[in-house]
Structures are given as structure tokens and as C-alpha cells.
């Protein structure tokens, strides 16, 4: 669905959350319960003392999967519908 066609259905920002989370439980704080959730944690080793300016350390990626996950709303930054192929 393109952004243009979606704009007619959205009158306030939380309408977009409703579209994203129509199958899941959520509230006005953006507390939400996600099913089959995947967590991705990306870390960059912080060795700025040894590395030249602007360079970053080694990247490590960890993923975890959850059948059911409660996310507290105050840590939410962005909500977007999953990309379609």
C-alpha cells in the first residue's frame, strides 16, 4: 500500500498504529503485546581510544525470538508497517 492511498485513512498519528497493530493488543501509551516477535540487538565495540577518529569497532548482532512479548510504550521510538515484497 502506498503512502498516498494511506493518507486518506489517517486523521491522527495513532490511526497509523491501528493499521500496523490491528491484530495485536496495544494502548495509547504504545504498550503492546507482539506475537512471534524478533528482537535484533546490534552492538559496536567501543574501543575509541585505540581507533582513529570516526572509526567504529567490531559489529556484533544478536537475535532472539519470542512467541509472545509485552513491550512497554515509553521505550517505543518508531512504529511502521512491515515492508511488502
Amino acid at each position, binding site marked *: 500500500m502506498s503512502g498516498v492511498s494511506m493518507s486518506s485513512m489517517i486523521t491522527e*498519528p495513532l490511526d*497509523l498504529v491501528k493499521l500496523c497493530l490491528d491484530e495485536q493488543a496495544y494502548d495509547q501509551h504504545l504498550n503492546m503485546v507482539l506475537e512471534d516477535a524478533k528482537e535484533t540487538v546490534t552492538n559496536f565495540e567501543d574501543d575509541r581510544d585505540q581507533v582513529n577518529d570516526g572509526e567504529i569497532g567490531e559489529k556484533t548482532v544478536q537475535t532472539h525470538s519470542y512467541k509472545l512479548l509485552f513491550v512497554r510504550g515509553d521505550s517505543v*521510538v518508531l*512504529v511502521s508497517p512491515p515492508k511488502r515484497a
Partner: protein
Amino acid sequence: MENTNLKTPADFLQKILGKPVYVRLHSGIYYKGTLACLDGYMNIALENTEELYEGKVTNSYGDAFIRGNNVLYISPA
């Protein structure tokens, strides 16, 4: 002054609805997109959004909801 018809910050936000904007978060990330709507918490819905960090595009979203507490400023692009 250029915008003498602007009275309040809310008037400014109404004026830039539907226009391309930069949204900067406290984390230093920018979102560039079309301002679809916003509410009293400064929650924001953006369309055709690009995420920028340190000048580089790091992600893109067709539609994006940004939780208002993260917002530092909104500026017409």
C-alpha cells in the same frame, strides 16, 4: 517579519501539514518525510520517510509513526 500571520506554534504545525519536513529526535536521528498528521503529544505520522544518521540514509519507511516524547524539533525540509 516574514510570517506575520503565524500566531502560535500550533498554527505553524498546521501550516506545514502535508509538506516535507525534517524531524530530529533526541538520539540525533533525523527523519525526512511528508508530515501526514500529528497530535497533542507530538506523536507524528510521516509518509515516504527516510531515516538519516550522521548524514547517511540508514533506513526508509512507507509510513512511520514517531512517538512524540522522542521529538526534538520539526522543520520544513
